[in-house]
């Protein structure tokens, strides 16, 4: 007779216990499957650029600024501060990066880009953390201010520099690019053979080791580094706890303000680095309006990736890939994507039939059929639709994948010390 120890745990049916984790082999298998599918589409459609070295390295270069902005968003939101000011911080990064870069070399530019973004982050932190103002208002204000300040300052700096104007900086020395000598060429040759799967794999790997700017390497490393810091250190635990339940954190002696400040400043620095990357690596000059909404795309990539570094980089990669496709011979590449989409939709139909969701299956089947017909009857997609490809793809991926998004629980909530209940 020991009823006294029967706890709710044993009595209550467990809720969601044993969440299945994706293990490495599974991830690799999924990637391989995806690549095989793309490869198949490439072979059928003859759009060989789909997995070429140039396409992949272009995708990487286009993805990096978005990923850095996304990483910035991740830092801030993990600490509970919504950061819609990423765009502005990125702009600050482009401006400061170029301003220091053209005078004192690219690496100084990188550092100043970080600092510029961090300043934007600091401002956002002061407004949201100290003054507890609605995070979105603050982010919007940071965006406006960043545009105003950089445009204003350009009148006094770049305008007077040789080769610059009030809208554009002089050229910045490039950062060293590395290409792994033997490997890169070998992979390129392999890719050029257009074999099924093998060439595609070679193309992907080749793209990742060819003309790789050192800053790209740094940026890519920041993704696992962020994961490690946030999920494997005491510092990261404290920071995340501020985004999940700051009052609980406070009750355990965590200085929530401090961590929020750090997070938002790092967030700004990351976005600033993304901006510096744009100015220094992507283009070699500062150019008014050059971020062109990439901060928002970064934010979207972060939400897409469920506030996790891995998912975020997947989102950024998807953008980079489709952007790159569209820019490099868009009409043909995107045309091939129609086929890819149709095949994917067929898979969805099968799944939905298996799940006995007949209506949805019918809709998906109709869409798939439509895409097949479109693919068969045309050789190119109108350039306007090519332009929309990255966005449509993202929407489709989101709509088709089950949504289990979970943002940090206290994200965007005001917090005041000593006001907890």
């Amino acid at each position, binding site marked *: 007779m020991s009823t006294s120890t029967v706890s709710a745990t044993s009595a209550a049916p467990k809720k969601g216990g044993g969440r299945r984790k994706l293990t490495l082999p599974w991830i690799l298998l999924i990637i391989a499957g995806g690549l095989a599918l793309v490869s198949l589409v490439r072979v059928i459609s003859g759009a060989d650029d789909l997995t070429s070295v140039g396409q992949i390295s272009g995708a990487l270069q286009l993805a990096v600024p978005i990923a850095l902005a996304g990483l910035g968003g991740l830092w801030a939101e993990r600490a509970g501060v919504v950061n819609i000011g990423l765009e502005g911080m990125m702009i600050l990064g482009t401006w400061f990066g170029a301003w220091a870069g053209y005078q004192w070399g690219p690496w100084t530019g990188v550092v100043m880009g970080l600092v510029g973004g961090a300043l934007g982050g600091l401002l956002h932190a002061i407004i949201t953390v100290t003054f507890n103002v609605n995070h979105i208002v603050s982010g919007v204000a940071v965006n406006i201010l960043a545009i105003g300040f950089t445009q204003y300052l350009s009148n006094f700096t770049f305008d007077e520099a040789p080769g610059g104007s009030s809208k554009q900086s002089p050229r910045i020395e490039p950062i060293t690019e590395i290409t792994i000598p033997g490997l890169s060429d070998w992979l390129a040759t392999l890719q050029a053979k257009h074999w099924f799967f093998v060439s595609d794999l070679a193309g992907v790997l080749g793209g990742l080791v060819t003309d790789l700017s050192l800053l790209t390497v740094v940026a890519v490393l920041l993704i696992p580094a962020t994961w490690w810091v946030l999920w494997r250190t005491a510092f990261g635990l404290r920071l995340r706890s501020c985004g999940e339940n700051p009052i609980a954190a406070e009750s355990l002696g965590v200085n929530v303000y401090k961590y929020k400040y750090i997070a938002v400043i790092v967030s700004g620095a990351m976005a600033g680095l993304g901006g510096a990357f744009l100015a220094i690596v992507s283009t070699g000059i500062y150019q008014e309006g050059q971020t062109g909404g990439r901060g928002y795309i970064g934010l979207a990539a972060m939400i897409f990736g469920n506030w996790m570094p891995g998912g975020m980089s997947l989102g950024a990669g998807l953008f980079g890939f489709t952007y790159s496709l569209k820019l490099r011979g868009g009409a043909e590449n995107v045309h091939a994507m129609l086929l890819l989409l149709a095949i994917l939709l067929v898979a969805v139909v099968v799944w939905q039939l298996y799940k006995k969701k007949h209506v949805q299956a019918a809709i998906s089947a109709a869409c798939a059929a439509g895409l097949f017909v479109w693919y068969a009857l045309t050789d190119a997609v109108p350039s306007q639709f090519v*332009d929309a490809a990255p966005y449509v793809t993202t929407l489709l991926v*989101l709509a088709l994948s089950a949504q289990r998004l979970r943002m940090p629980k206290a994200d965007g909530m005001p917090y005041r010390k000593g006001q907890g209940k």
Partner: protein
Amino acid sequence: MKKFDKDRLLLAAAGPALALVSAFVLTMIVLAASGVAPIDPLRIMVEQAGYEDVQVLILNQAGIYYLAALAVAIGFRMNLFNIGVDGQYRLAAMISAVVGAAVTLPGPLHILMIVAVAMLTGAFWAGIAGILKAKRGVSEVVSTIMLNAIATALIAWLLLPKNLGVQVEGSNDLTTGKIAESGWFPALTIGDGLEIYGFTFVAFALGIVYWFVLNRTRFGFDLRATGASESAAQASGVDAKKMIMTSMLLSGAVAGLTGMPLLLGESHTYNLSFPLGIGFTGITIALLGRNHPVGIFFSALLIAFIDKASAGLDTAGYAKEIGTIMQGLIVIAVVVSYELVRRYGIRRQQQKVGEELAAGHAIKTDKEVAA
């Protein structure tokens, strides 16, 4: 009791006053730091606002901003962040311009039809985000950012001469063709060709409707309740998914109207230089006005004033980016000073209680008073 009210009034006025003063001071500091005489640009801006033609521009622009901000505010009131107003109004303006140019109806009917098409288009475009959110749980932030870009591409395609567009011989512009005069919204002419768009008044009237629907109807209550606490609203009988759809559709329909003052009052056609970005300004204004119709009205006026008054700066030899900087500073100053005033108010109240206690009154909390 009376004294208390006066206090509150004072506090209420202190917010905006503090904000404006500090924003101006900050701007002056920025100007001085960059070696520009700080007073002059501001004086020019104030002077600009004294001119009748600039006033009309400000008012007209404020009407446009007002609509965009209302659209954003509808979403905000139930915690939906509609970043997609930008795409919604552009697509709506374009489609309704096409329809308006293609059809000719007698006067008011023609206008009504154009407006209805615009609202439907805006609602449709926002509805996509709504459906994705309600059915698939796709974050509306992401989907509306995507839909903005997709709208751009779609408009570009539709505007091709081979589709719905018109390219006049010798012109490099693409238009939708001109709407017949029966579809022009009558304007208020105030001498010398200055016109206040008739639709500006519609915009402000819509603010009243917005207020009424939100504060005086069951639907509005449900919407606000959902925004305040989704779980509580659901328990109270609100169908959350339906609410997401409805408010997204409403927000989109109002967004669709954003282009109307210009389309019906000025350009009478949609062309390549139809303004973009108003949706984003709308976000600023809605937040600055705290999603309240009167607040939005004043912030729309304020932002429009800075826009138009700073436009004259460059002819006077100053960088007109000063205007942008001022906008940013004002937004920050306003929200921060609201917060400071609020905190001050709380502290004062606390002090008062303390004083009362010190004065030897019995422990008399508010609760007891009511009991």
